[in-house]
């Protein structure tokens, strides 16, 4: 295993030291592994909290700041954070207007956030609403599984709903917008290589040189299908098709994210975006906004994912609203 780390057990603690030193505008609680905004939540503003296993950076810590999250809880690599972390973040971020928990649909994340919400409401009276993202079309037969995974749409949701919270909408409105965004987004991912979990010390799966995994999530789990490596244009087709098959994106502006898994360089991500955009054009889908880069990653995995969000003028307005975080910044 070749990584820029001190020891597999200290990856998260050491990385949080770097985050704190690199971002004087943020606060880091090293005991509870929470990244907060430097300024307390404005009175009346609903607080947005997310969290999850580490290894997906910039998600979620890189999205803490004006126009997005108020706090992010970091779990161990690929392991959801614990309820006490989330409860602490909930307490600190709440300004009285309530807190939205943004949870990606994984058994562990859901159970831990559930316990946190119970604890926060019971012990401190903070009003908590939760939204669970589940946009991954790679998970078929979702009634016979833990349901679809929450992946790329989480990034778009944190941006859009963050803007709405900044405008002063109440908890119910913020939560309902979050559910709408989740319902209108779909994603699909693929991997050229496995990632290596530091504590495991070797790649999670072996992939021959001429094969790729289609339908991977963001935890180095093997995908749904192992298929022959193909040119970018074919890969784009294999990613976009199940997305378009799953939801009707016609007749509305869309926001499209071409996301890197962490080990794929930007030149390839742009190349892939070109292929994806051409397919969407041919399918009559109107791309109003786009985002190309590493936003929700899977450690050092090489690969990418596509997220398409059915938007409208209001969602586009919220998308364009100012945001000032380490991982996403415009308009400020």
């Amino acid at each position, binding site marked *: 295993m070749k990584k820029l780390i001190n020891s597999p057990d200290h990856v998260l603690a050491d990385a949080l030291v770097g985050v704190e030193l690199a971002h004087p505008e943020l606060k880091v609680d090293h005991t509870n592994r929470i990244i907060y905004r430097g300024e307390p939540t404005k009175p009346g503003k609903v607080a947005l909290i997310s969290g999850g296993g580490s290894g997906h950076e910039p998600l979620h810590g890189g999205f803490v700041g004006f126009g997005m999250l108020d706090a992010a809880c970091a779990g*161990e690599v690929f392991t959801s954070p614990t309820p006490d972390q989330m409860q602490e973040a909930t307490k600190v971020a709440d300004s009285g207007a309530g807190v939205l928990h943004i949870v990606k649909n994984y058994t562990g994340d859901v159970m831990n956030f559930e316990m946190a919400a119970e604890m926060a409401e019971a012990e401190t009276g903070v009003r908590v609403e939760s939204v669970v993202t589940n946009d991954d079309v790679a998970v078929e037969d979702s009634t016979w599984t833990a349901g679809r995974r929450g992946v790329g749409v989480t990034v778009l949701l944190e941006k859009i709903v963050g803007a709405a919270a900044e405008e002063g909408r109440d908890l119910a409105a913020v939560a309902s917008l979050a559910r709408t965004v989740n319902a209108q987004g779909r994603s699909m991912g693929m991997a050229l290589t496995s990632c290596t*979990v530091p504590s495991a010390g070797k790649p999670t799966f072996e992939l021959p040189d001429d094969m790729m995994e289609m339908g991977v999530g963001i935890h180095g789990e093997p995908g749904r299908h192992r298929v022959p490596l193909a040119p970018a244009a074919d890969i784009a087709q294999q990613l976009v098709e199940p997305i378009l098959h799953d939801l009707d994106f016609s007749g509305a502006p869309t926001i499209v994210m071409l996301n890197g898994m962490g080990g794929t360089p930007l030149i390839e991500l742009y190349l892939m975006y070109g292929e994806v955009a051409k397919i969407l054009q041919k399918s009559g889908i109107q791309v109003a906004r786009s985002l190309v880069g590493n936003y929700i990653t899977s450690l050092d995995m090489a690969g990418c994912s596509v997220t398409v969000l059915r938007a409208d003028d209001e969602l586009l307005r919220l998308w364009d609203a100012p945001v000032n975080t380490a991982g996403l910044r415009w308009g400020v």
Partner: protein
Amino acid sequence: MAGETVTLSSLVTWLSRFRDLVTENRNYLTELDSAIGDADHGANMARGMAAVMEKVGASPATTADELFKSVGMTLVTSVGGASGPLYGTFFLRFGMTAGAVSEFDGAALSAALRAGLGGVVARGKPELGDKTMFDAMSPALEAFDASVASGGSPAAAAAAAYDAAVVGRDATTPLVARKGRASYLGERSAGHLDPGATSTAFLFQALAESLAQG
């Protein structure tokens, strides 16, 4: 030979033996989780049980409810993932049902374990054959109860439970997962042992060994 009552100190031995087993088998559990999950089950269990034994060593409890509340909370707050809330709730409910006692007979131990299992079901909604820890835990408790019912000692019941857990664990191999991360793999999850069922077999191995010692 093991007696008819189980002391708190043998339950501490249970925990410490469980810690040892998941620590020794950390890479093995992670290996299993690499095949159908996200390669962290070994790290999760080892981290959690290390924290538990540190906590137990630092502030020894005198009653079961105190001990297992601390065990459960420590797991919940140090593990994360799916196994943190599941094993955490198992021990929390175990302690609540056990109450402020420092000795158990077979029936009391069974009731506490049943409550723990109920906690896992409440959190994870597993059903038999979903390819989860429940597939080892549920038959283990059946066997435990059957042994107690037929007059077996707690040690004998625990030994029977361990045997049944192993059978239940091994039976997860051909299954297609329907809960947890492995379910995303669909058919590809078949042909692999479930990591959580494997750690649960260690839980009952630890119980059997600690009660056998008396």
